[in-house]
């Protein structure tokens, strides 16, 4: 198991490093004018030169990359602007370390995503199992039909309508609000609950059919037949034999889907007005604040890689066979 974990961690690290290189290449080697953006309104050519010097933009790209990577590990001092590790660079527009901005946005996005994962995993597995159990019956048809329907409507339209009708016009669900879990776990929970329920429910529609197919597939497995031939009751078979096997592929899917969830969080943050990483990226996109976008992408990659790692480890717990591979 230890070897397995080590291997996974190493793989994750190598992937992360590559993600950093790729991000750097895309965002810093591309044509852009960071100094011009940072220069502001009383801009003179001298000032641009000075800013470029401050930010090290006049140096060769390879050196810039080394500086960037070094900043991630050990921090940087950009022309008197102190940028502590992990330094993701300096925001041209906001005149702040990117790390500060990401630090602010990070817990918001992670809260949304994690809460969403809990809700949609629960609902997805629950409804998927129910549908599989009542395969071909009206209940199954209703569940599958509704999930088909929900997944077909663009998420952002649903979110807008939900926000306006459920939260604004009729006030059925309290307006979303983020408070740090460290400040007040209770308001953190109540503030995000509405979003989790909505986001999780909509997303679960994607997984209901998957879990259902997976459970049906499991039902057809030889070992379920064996369990039945032992004289085990159906409930016991469903919970102790089928569920465990049916969840394994779902876990894999979960790992794959984290990237997509981060995307979903962008729409969620935007529409529900939460200042997470997606909103941060969009704002920075609008002001061409490339270091911020790059920072968000790098941190996004970290989230994906670590959640993937977590899923892999969980998978290792569920399926004893992976320890060998």
């Amino acid at each position, binding site marked *: 198991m230890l070897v397995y974990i080590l291997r996974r961690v190493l*793989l*994750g690290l*190598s*992937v*992360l490093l*590559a*993600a950093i290189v*790729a991000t750097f290449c*895309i*965002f810093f080697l*591309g*044509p*852009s004018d960071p100094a011009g953006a940072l220069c502001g309104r009383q801009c003179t050519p001298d000032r641009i030169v000075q800013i470029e010097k401050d930010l090290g933009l006049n140096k060769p790209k390879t050196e810039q990359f080394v500086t960037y990577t070094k900043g991630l590990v050990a921090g940087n001092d950009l022309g008197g602007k102190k940028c502590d590790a992990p330094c993701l660079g300096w925001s041209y527009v906001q005149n702040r370390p990117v790390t500060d901005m990401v630090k602010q946005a990070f817990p918001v996005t992670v809260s949304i995503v994690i809460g969403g994962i809990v809700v949609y995993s629960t609902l997805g597995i629950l409804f998927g199992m129910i549908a599989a159990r009542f*395969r*071909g019956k009206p209940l*199954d*048809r209703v569940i*599958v039909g509704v999930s*088909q*329907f929900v*997944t*077909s*409507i*663009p*998420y*952002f*339209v649903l979110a*807008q*309508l939900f926000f306006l009708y459920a939260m604004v016009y009729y006030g059925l669900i309290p307006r979303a609000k983020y408070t740090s879990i460290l400040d007040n776990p209770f308001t953190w929970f109540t503030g995000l609950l509405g979003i989790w329920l909505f986001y999780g429910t909509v997303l679960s529609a994607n997984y209901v*059919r998957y879990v259902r*197919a997976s459970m*049906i*597939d499991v039902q*057809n497995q030889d070992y379920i*037949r064996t369990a039945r031939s032992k004289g085990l009751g159906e409930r016991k078979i469903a919970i102790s034999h089928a569920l465990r096997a049916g969840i394994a592929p779902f876990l894999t899917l979960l790992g*794959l889907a984290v*990237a*997509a969830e*981060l*995307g979903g969080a*962008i*729409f969620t943050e*935007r529409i529900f007005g939460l200042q997470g*990483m*997606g909103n941060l*990226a*969009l704002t920075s*996109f609008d002001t*061409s604040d*490339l270091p911020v*976008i*790059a920072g*968000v*992408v790098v941190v*996004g*990659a970290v*989230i*994906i*890689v670590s959640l*993937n790692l977590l899923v892999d480890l969980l998978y290792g717990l569920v399926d004893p066979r992976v320890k060998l591979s």
Partner: protein
Amino acid sequence: MSLGAGTEATMVADADERAPGPAPREGKSPTQIALERLRKDKVAIACLFVIGFFVLVAILAPVLVSIAGVDDQLHLDQVNPLTGLASFQSNADHPFGVKARTGEDLFYQWAYGARPSLVVGIAASALTMVVGVTMGLLAGFLGGVVDTVVSWIVDFLLSLPFLLMAIGIVPIALQRFGNPDSSGFIEEGRESTIRFIVLICVLVLFTWPTVARLIRGEVLSLREREFVQAARSLGMPTKRVVMRELLPNLTGPMIVNLTILIPAFIATEAGLSFLGVGLKDPTYSWGQTISQGVTFFDSYPIWMWIPTISVSLLVLALSLFGDAVSDAFNPQTRR
């Protein structure tokens, strides 16, 4: 000891006896059998009609707009300058209404908007399949270093946040490949072409790894199967093994995947356009229209609802059809 080579294959399949699979029939490939099943599936046929309808709309867009007598010009006189909205939702001149303020015809944008949805959906998923299947085959069949490298690339690409990357890549690609003239002028047509290509590339780039992973898994299990082993031990060239033995057996998962990808891409295109990094004028797309119209969903509902319903219907039809295809290939998961 066995009953002899002639019955070997059927004996292997004996395990399926309990779960009644397709009854053996002479001279029919799994694809043909699946097609036959599809033909009998009423839902699948209905979905095909819906899909066909939108394909026709896309192809016949110029004809449709000329029948409706609408164009892509501004019609400032069509809207109330005070509220910016038209007084009608739909009339004979503008069956799907007009946009706020500018009075641009929405039927025109809807008809032409069908094109990018379908083209993106089909082109991107076809490309994704080609790349994904190729890489999956290479990794799964050749194994060794190739497998390690491809699997690593797959892991790497899947670790990048897709939407964030898309948001970043689009403007950069525009600047890099836009070839502006001395005054920074990028022709409108050129820009929308670039956006189109970038969008497809981004979709393909971040989706092929999923396909490759799946195909690799399939190939790994197929590789151990008797007929492939036999073909290899007989010294059949790799290319022939792949083309003759592997690919035909991958048809099922490939088609099923394709039917999942197309609606997913159509939905993604709409989402990206909503975020402002998808397609832009003069390439109309439903996602764009939705994102513009969603503000007015209560005061001018037709603006948002027509493209929303169109996208939803198309995606629904495509995914139901996909389910039907998947069922046809794999009756075990049949509803």
